[in-house]
């Protein structure tokens, strides 16, 4: 048939399906070839495509609806994507039978049905045979539902309430018989021991006080084997030696308990001490080994090893004297070691302080130098300005002097006055040269000027 017909058929079929076969609980394993690749359940009403792929009819119709492009008469197979136009309802009978044979739980398991049935029979089981299917009450005036197994041969309503003649309680019709025979609290029963007749409700109370019921002796927890009638128990307890011993046992028990608890306490403390001792031992061993190592720094390695092993023996020996000696020697070495350590620390502190001081001193020197350099620059500037002034003051005189000198050779002045003149001219220039001398000893221009002046 073509797709349209198939879809129409599926549409109409879905309505008369009561039970969802896919939601059943499967009891048996089934062959994976029986699984629909779309819903992953055993096939339900399978159909076949041209490519021989099989699907549940309903699964295929939803696949067609979601894969077919608007009303074309073709769609891709959900397994192999081959374009498909025809759907065939003729699936091998064998396949359908195998699917129908799969064992499932009755879906009314929620109501109490425990039956396991082939899947093919589920529909009819639920409709006709299941004792837990709900039927309308046979009495037309009652609108309640009844489990089919509760509808008796007499077809009467079980929802009617009947009042118990003894206890005045309201009981459902179909439970009345059970109530009357076994459950009614007013029902009279006889005590199995004293044959007194009491009501069911009071039986428990009676058993607790019945003189005929055998009860154990009060000292049963201290192993009195006697178990006799309540009426006689008082007499027994009077004479029972174990009852007489009772208070003694009790105090003994209490003592044992307190001893046990203190034992436990002591054990805990002991464990703590042992731990502490082990810690101390291991630290001792460490330090003696360290000490041995540092002492034998210069010695040959063989004696080093000897000392180590002896230290180990010391640490492991249980002889208290040896241990004490070990403790003492190791105490001394640890003391020396710590002293060494603190000295080393002091030295490093000192060296720190020294570098600090060094840095500070050089800083101060630098600062001082800067200051002095500035001062010198100031002085230089002052000296320069003074020199300029002197030069300025000297210039006119020098001009005069040269003018006079140029005239003098032609004149008839004596050699003596000329030298006098020259010395008087050179005098002040000498003085400036000398005052500048110590400050700027190598000014070539100065000496040159002096030369020219002389």
């Amino acid at each position, binding site marked *: 048939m073509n797709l349209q017909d198939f879809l129409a058929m599926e549409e109409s079929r879905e309505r008369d399906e009561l039970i969802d076969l896919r939601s059943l609980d499967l009891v048996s394993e089934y062959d994976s070839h029986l699984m629909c690749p*779309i*819903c*992953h359940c055993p096939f339900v009403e399978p159909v076949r495509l041209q490519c021989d792929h099989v699907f549940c009819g309903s699964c295929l119709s*939803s696949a067609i609806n*979601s894969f077919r492009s608007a009303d074309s008469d073709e769609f891709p197979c*959900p397994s192999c994507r081959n374009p498909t136009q025809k759907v065939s309802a003729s699936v091998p009978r064998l396949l359908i039978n195998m699917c129908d044979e799969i064992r499932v739980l009755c879906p009314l398991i929620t109501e109490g049905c425990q039956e396991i049935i082939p899947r093919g029979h589920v529909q009819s089981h639920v409709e006709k045979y299941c004792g837990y299917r709900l039927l309308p009450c046979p009495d037309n005036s009652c609108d309640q539902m009844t489990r089919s197994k509760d509808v008796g041969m007499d077809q009467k309503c079980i929802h009617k309430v009947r009042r118990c003649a003894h206890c005045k309680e309201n009981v459902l019709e179909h439970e009345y018989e059970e109530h009357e025979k076994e459950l009614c609290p007013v029902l009279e029963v006889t005590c199995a021991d004293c044959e007194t007749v009491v009501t069911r409700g009071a039986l428990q109370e009676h058993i607790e006080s019945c003189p005929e019921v055998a009860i154990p002796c009060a000292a049963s927890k201290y192993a009195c084997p006697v178990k006799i009638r309540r009426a006689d128990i008082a007499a027994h307890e009077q004479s029972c030696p174990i009852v007489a011993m009772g208070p003694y046992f009790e105090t003994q028990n209490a003592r044992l308990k307190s001893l046990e608890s203190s034992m436990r306490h002591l054990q805990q403390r002991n464990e703590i001490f042992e731990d502490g001792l082990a810690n101390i031992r291991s630290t001792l061993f460490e330090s003696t080994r360290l000490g041995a190592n540092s002492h034998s720094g210069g010695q040959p390695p063989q004696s080093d090893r000897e000392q180590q092993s002896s230290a180990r023996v010391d640490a492991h020996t249980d002889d208290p004297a040896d241990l004490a000696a070990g403790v003492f020697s190791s105490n001394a070495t640890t003391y020396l070691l710590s002293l060494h350590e603190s000295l080393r620390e002091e030295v490093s502190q000192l060296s720190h302080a020294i570098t600090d001081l060094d840095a500070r001193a050089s800083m101060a020197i630098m600062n001082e130098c800067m200051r002095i350099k500035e001062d010198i620059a100031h002085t230089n500037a002052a000296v320069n300005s003074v020199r300029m002034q002197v030069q300025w003051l000297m210039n006119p005189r020098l001009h005069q002097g040269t003018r006079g000198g140029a005239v003098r050779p032609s004149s008839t002045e004596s050699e003596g006055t000329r030298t006098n003149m020259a010395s008087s001219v050179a005098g002040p220039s000498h003085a400036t040269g000398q005052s500048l001398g110590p400050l700027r000893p190598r000014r070539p221009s100065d000496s040159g000027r002096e030369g020219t002046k002389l």
Partner: protein
Amino acid sequence: MGSIKRISKELTELTESPPEGITVELADESNVYEWKVIMEGPESSPYYNGKFLVKLSLPTEYPFKPPTVSFATKIYHPNVTNDEKGSMCLGMLRADEWKPSSKIAAVLQFARQLLSEPMPDDAVEGRIAEQYKNDRGRYEEVAREWTRKHAC
């Protein structure tokens, strides 16, 4: 609502006998459509030793529409978008190639297979695909680096 039954069936199968290097659980116990998958990098790939968180979302039309797979853990791979989505969409995951008969297990195995054998001709990250084709060593180096940084 047939899809919920199939999905929970597949989930049970996957948790009872998980495929190699793949563990699945629901992201939220009350929603069977969102799965959290931990995928271990295959030994033969530069993603080895990495544990990648993969999100698998099933459409309500499942199995008639394909699930979507996205890497929540950053991964350097030509077929996984290098953004916060980290989506992977090719081959059987494409809507026009999806078959309702394919199982989620097959989808996850396909995704893991893609880690050891990327498909550069079908890439979403062209640059990585180029590198994968022309400079395999560098690609593996970067992928390993990313794995170490993001997936360990």
